[in-house]
């Protein structure tokens, strides 16, 4: 017994109107991506605590399983590590002396400003993108912890990616191996610039494409690539990885090669976020106007 007779609309008209709606949303969100931020982050804000919860359960279980497996190997490893520690602590002392010397030298050349250590925040990876085409993931810290869009994300000592969306309690990170990622890089030794482009094709081999290296650049396989000084989003001097297979392009003006990232993207669990944006961004924008 229905209380009221519903007005039934032909499904094809609903399809047509919803398609039109979708196209409008696509255009609007493409054109005004900043304006839609609050709406987008609201959904993420609700969902990310749930993802975090599921993850912590999973982590607990896998930790317990690992515990059982690892006790024996840990004991032998512990012994080995203790021996290693004594040698390393000795080396550390030498390094500290070197560091002291280095600081003095830097003061002399007034370079310490440039390489000052940045303030960092640690966060956990809580979920990955649901479709298989891109490589973005969510972390469990957001604007509440002082994060903002365009902050650089590290793991270990290498670059992982950049924050593309910051919600209240979560942020979305686009990794440098993502197909739509482009990073302006620079050879540490020679200061030649290049472009580091993520590619879905190369993900399985664990490499990233490097292009637009000047033909005159005197670079060899194995050189370190760091983020460049001309990038407007990435802080200067963060290690990206090591280059290999340099070849001259067909246009005979540039060289390209492949880069082995310094970070293992398969086992990404915790990341560090530099809570400092590239300083001159605002100045640059002013200049552009």
């Amino acid at each position, binding site marked *: 017994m229905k209380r009221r007779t519903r007005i039934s609309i032909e499904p094809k008209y609903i399809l047509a109107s919803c398609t039109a709606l979708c196209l409008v949303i696509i255009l609007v969100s493409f054109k005004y991506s900043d304006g839609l931020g609050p709406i*987008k982050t609201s959904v993420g804000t609700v969902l990310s605590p749930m993802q975090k919860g599921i993850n912590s359960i999973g982590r607990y279980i896998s930790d317990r399983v690992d515990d059982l497996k690892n006790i024996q190997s840990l004991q032998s490893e512990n012994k080995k590590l203790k021996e290693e520690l004594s040698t390393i602590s000795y080396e550390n002392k030498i390094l500290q002396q070197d560091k002291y010397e280095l600081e003095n030298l830097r003061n002399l050349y007034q370079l310490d400003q440039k390489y000052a250590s940045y303030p960092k925040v640690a966060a956990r990876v809580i979920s990955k993108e649901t479709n298989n085409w891109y490589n973005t993931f969510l972390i469990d810290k957001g604007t509440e912890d002082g994060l903002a869009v365009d902050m650089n994300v590290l793991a270990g000592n290498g670059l992982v990616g950049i924050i593309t969306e910051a919600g209240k309690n979560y942020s979305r990170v686009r990794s440098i191996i993502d197909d739509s990622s482009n990073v302006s890089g620079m050879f540490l030794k020679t200061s030649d610039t290049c472009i580091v482009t993520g590619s879905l094709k190369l993900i399985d081999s664990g490499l990233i494409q490097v292009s637009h290296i000047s033909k005159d650049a005197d670079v060899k396989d194995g050189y370190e690539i760091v983020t460049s000084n001309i990038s407007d989003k990435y802080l200067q001097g963060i290690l990206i990885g090591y280059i290999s297979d340099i070849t001259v392009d067909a246009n005979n003006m540039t060289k390209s090669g492949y880069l082995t990232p310094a970070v293992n993207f398969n086992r990404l669990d915790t990341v560090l976020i530099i809570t400092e944006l590239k300083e001159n961004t605002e100045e640059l924008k002013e200049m552009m106007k």
Partner: protein
Amino acid sequence: MKRFGIMLIIIILCFLLQSTFFQALALADVVPNLLLIITVAVGYMRGRKEGLVIGLICGLLSDFVYSDVIGVCALIYMVIGYLNGIFNMLFFRDVLTIPILLIGVSDLVYNFMYYVMEFLLRSRLNLFFYFRRIMIPELVYTVLVSVLLYKLLHNLNAFLERRENKEV
């Protein structure tokens, strides 16, 4: 209305599982597309209108959380939900072959449309690579998972229909 609420909970649950639990179980680096299974199953069991609405919700959810441009996934899922709704006339209880076949074909269509809208437009032309690397593994994995998930959705649908009949 109750049915809509239950479907919403299932969609969110599957979305959460797909983004966390199944990421740990990824085979050949791909994750089964649970949202697509829901869209196809609802379209096949309930007809064009409901398939369309559920597809739209699934698409919007993944767009909102994971994508820069909103609406691409929503559009694809919606069209797939609608097209599967047409096959509602073939709906028989407890028949598994037709829905599994539909899910397989839909997954291929979804990935192809996604490729065209997101990758081809950025001049990534090597279709066969992406075919081998993503579409086929995802197809296989999704179909495997769908055997289980479709069964669950099917039983849930039967249960809800019985309840609704009793109320009337």
